[in-house]
């Protein structure tokens, strides 16, 4: 039963032109406008990027961008909460039109979704307790490291540090909870939220600030949704020019970051 159906990964490997081109996948901008809603995937448990306040409304940097996009399209935003490992499938199976969930651009992912222009810089970091600080990835050999399933941190450690024992969690809540409970020696994730988290939690430091190459975070659409992709690219450019990201940084992110982080470390001009 699993045998048939499109296989985007294979198609991507044999040449990206075969699956894109004329065929339009997913909803076009016009269709979205006609529906009056855009469905956007985001995290629900990742302050300050995407979370839910006690009054039940969504907030965060990703959410601010999403709301702006909704406004500019003139449609309502329907938020769909996902976990890291559900982001690709939510696009593939047409559950959402757009992903704004700290989605790091990687080569593997490029084969299965289409990324728009990036709106944030990121690299993998490792946070650890001050009492047993980890300052280089090599120190993690034989130790337990918490990661979230489907994140770049997971893939990076699986491929580059097979000796590190990974504890893989479904959600950010769970990984941080397990980390705080002392179940693991350290936690690896995008450095930006580690900064934020470490600020909220005294006694923990981001001992490894960057690992591997610096990468970027970008909105993603279904592979082949050229129409929405083009629109999104235009939108990002326009928002950059308007200083939207700077503003959003100040209101959403800065309060959560320590003072040694500069806007240039995070946002893309």
């Amino acid at each position, binding site marked *: 039963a*699993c*045998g048939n*159906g499109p296989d985007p990964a294979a198609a991507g490997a044999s040449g990206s032109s075969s699956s894109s081109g004329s065929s339009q996948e997913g909803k076009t901008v016009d269709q979205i406008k006609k529906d009056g809603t855009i469905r956007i995937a985001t995290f629900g448990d990742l302050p300050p990027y995407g979370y839910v306040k006690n009054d039940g409304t969504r907030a965060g940097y990703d959410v601010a961008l999403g709301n702006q996009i909704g406004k500019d399209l003139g449609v309502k935003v329907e938020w769909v909460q996902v976990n890291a490992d559900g982001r690709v*499938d939510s696009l593939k199976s047409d559950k959402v039109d757009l992903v704004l969930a700290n989605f790091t651009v990687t080569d593997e992912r490029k084969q*299965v979704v289409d990324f728009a222009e990036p709106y944030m810089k990121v690299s993998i970091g490792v946070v650890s307790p001050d009492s047993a600080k980890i300052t280089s990835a090599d120190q993690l050999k034989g130790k337990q490291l918490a990661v979230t*399933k489907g994140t770049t941190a997971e*893939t990076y450690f699986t491929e580059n540090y097979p000796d590190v024992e990974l504890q*893989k969690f479904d959600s950010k809540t769970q990984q941080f*909870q397990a980390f705080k409970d002392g*179940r693991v020696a350290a936690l690896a994730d995008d450095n930006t939220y580690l900064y934020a988290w470490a600020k909220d939690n005294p006694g923990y430091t981001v001992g490894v600030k960057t690992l591997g190459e610096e990468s970027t975070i970008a909105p993603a659409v279904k592979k082949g949704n050229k129409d929405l992709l083009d629109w999104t690219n235009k939108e990002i450019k326009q928002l950059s020019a308007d200083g939207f990201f700077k503003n959003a940084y100040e209101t959403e992110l800065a309060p959560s970051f320590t003072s040694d982080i500069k806007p240039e470390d995070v946002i893309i001009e």
Partner: protein
Amino acid sequence: MSWQIMQSALPLFERAFVLTLKLSAISVVLATALGLVLALLREYRTPVLSHISTVFQELFRNTPLLIQLFFLYYGLPSVGIMWSAQTCAIVGMSIFGAAYMSGAFEGGFSGMPRVQKESARALGLAPLQMIRHVTLPQGLTRSVPAVAANIIFMVKETSVFTVIAVPELTNTARDLIGMYYRSDEYLFMLVVAYAIILIPLSIILTLLERRVRRGTFGDN
């Protein structure tokens, strides 16, 4: 579907397979033992303990395993109790399974005709002798089908361990899908892995059921 992808994931699935088997086996053994004790406490109306047994059963039969595991794994550390993921999995599944198993045993005991207990009493058997020679052999045999169903149920339920980061089969499959986006291959391997465990298990249990009946009642 690509063979190559499946082949490269094979070692991971193998590890997960072994772990699933191990955790299932330990939990099934503990749950069966605990469930039997709980059922006997109720069967013989032991004061206080039989009530505790009832509360235990109702509490853990009527709440999802997933939330029990969350509570053990994420909740208990806030009050200073911290067990490893696998310990939480075993403890959680044993408690959950015991609640079901005690029901199965109770069904077996209560299916016994009243005249059996009475004729045991009429022979002057003491309560413990009655348990040993009448209640247990007949009750256990009668409970075998329900116990077997529970074992299968428990093995399937180990898939829920995925939520507390135990790298069993379901977790492994989800993890691989999350990293490499090949859901067809990994889901296929997942279903096959469960089939490899559960189909023979269910056949063995059916044979065992027949065997036990014959051993106890001389059926054929």
